[in-house]
């Protein structure tokens, strides 16, 4: 009974962690470039098939493409296909993101909402406006005509799911994710840049709600298992007459 008690309790704990992950997904459902995650579980078995329940292994980021939505921002970019924007923070550290909501700073760089700089592009001070093509080429309009002033390149990883989530829809390269590889967008089979669009989070509210219901019911049935094991212990205690 103690094993049944433990197995059922471990199921409750695992579903609790599951719910944490789902709640995090839901909370960030409206964050541009956010990637939802799914909790992973593993069965616990001691040698000789003694059952020990389950364990939550931690969340795994799901890098499925989010929906592209038209956006009126002055420098909104979305990636269609794999790849990340390469950002540089105030300490010179590299961060990768799918959130392409940039704006022009006074020094001509493109910065995101957290003030991280998009690597590789600087818009001259006398440029009136700028657009970005599907191939990443930045074309600025000057008083005397248009000129290409740079190219936004994307970064791909061999194993993007091994990137470390540092919050704010930003990711950091790890030894497990492989070396960052620079890609030029716009090729036939590669990622493309969409100017004037943003990538919404890949979390679907309905899916998340379904997951909550499932997790809640799983939690409940495990709680019933704990109750049953407890009740059995009580019955066993009744064998001893007082």
């Amino acid at each position: 009974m103690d094993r049944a008690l433990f197995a059922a309790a471990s199921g409750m704990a695992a579903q609790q962690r599951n719910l944490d992950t789902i709640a995090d997904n839901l909370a960030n459902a409206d964050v541009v470039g956010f990637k939802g995650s799914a909790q992973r579980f593993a069965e616990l078995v001691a040698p000789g098939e003694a059952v020990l329940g389950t364990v939550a292994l931690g969340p795994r980021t799901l890098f499925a493409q989010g929906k592209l939505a038209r956006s009126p921002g002055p420098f909104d970019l979305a990636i269609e296909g794999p790849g990340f924007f390469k950002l540089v923070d105030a300490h010179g550290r590299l961060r990768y993101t799918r959130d392409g909501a940039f704006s022009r700073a006074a020094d001509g760089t493109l910065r995101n909402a957290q003030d991280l700089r998009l690597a590789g592009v600087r818009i001259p001070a006398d440029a009136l406006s700028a657009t970005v093509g599907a191939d990443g080429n930045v074309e600025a309009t000057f008083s005397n005509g248009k000129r290409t002033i740079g190219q936004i390149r994307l970064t791909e990883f061999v194993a993007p799911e091994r990137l470390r989530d540092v919050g704010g829809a930003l990711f950091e390269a790890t030894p497990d994710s492989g070396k960052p590889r620079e890609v030029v967008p716009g090729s036939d089979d590669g990622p493309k840049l969409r100017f004037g669009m943003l990538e919404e989070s890949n979390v679907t509210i309905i899916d998340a709600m379904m997951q909550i219901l499932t997790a809640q019911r799983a939690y409940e049935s495990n709680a019933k298992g704990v109750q049953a094991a407890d009740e059995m212990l009580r019955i066993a205690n009744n064998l001893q007459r007082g």
Partner: protein
Amino acid sequence: MAIRYHARMDGIAWAASAMVAARTRLEIATQNLANVSTDGFRPIAAHGFLTALGVTISRERVLEPAGSIRAAGLVSNGVDAIAEMIDVLAAERAFESAQKAVAAIDAARQKSAEAARIK
């Protein structure tokens, strides 16, 4: 022809074996329930059978893939939560019945011990 009884083959031992079997059944059901969200989990099936020493439960992995391919995060891995819940309840009641049997045999023996003392 004399019937040969096994040394442990008495009522209390039989009823106790049923209690142990019910406990094993609960263990298996809770293990399956605990892993209702585990990817690639194969549920354990409980088979009860009768031996000279009472009831035993054997466990067997259900190996054929009963789960279906699912969208990320939506559970389906072959664990039938309803069947497992019923198993939890059934195991609990079976345990209770077996305990009652042990208690009844114990009470009957106590009565005969008292009767023997009076006469």
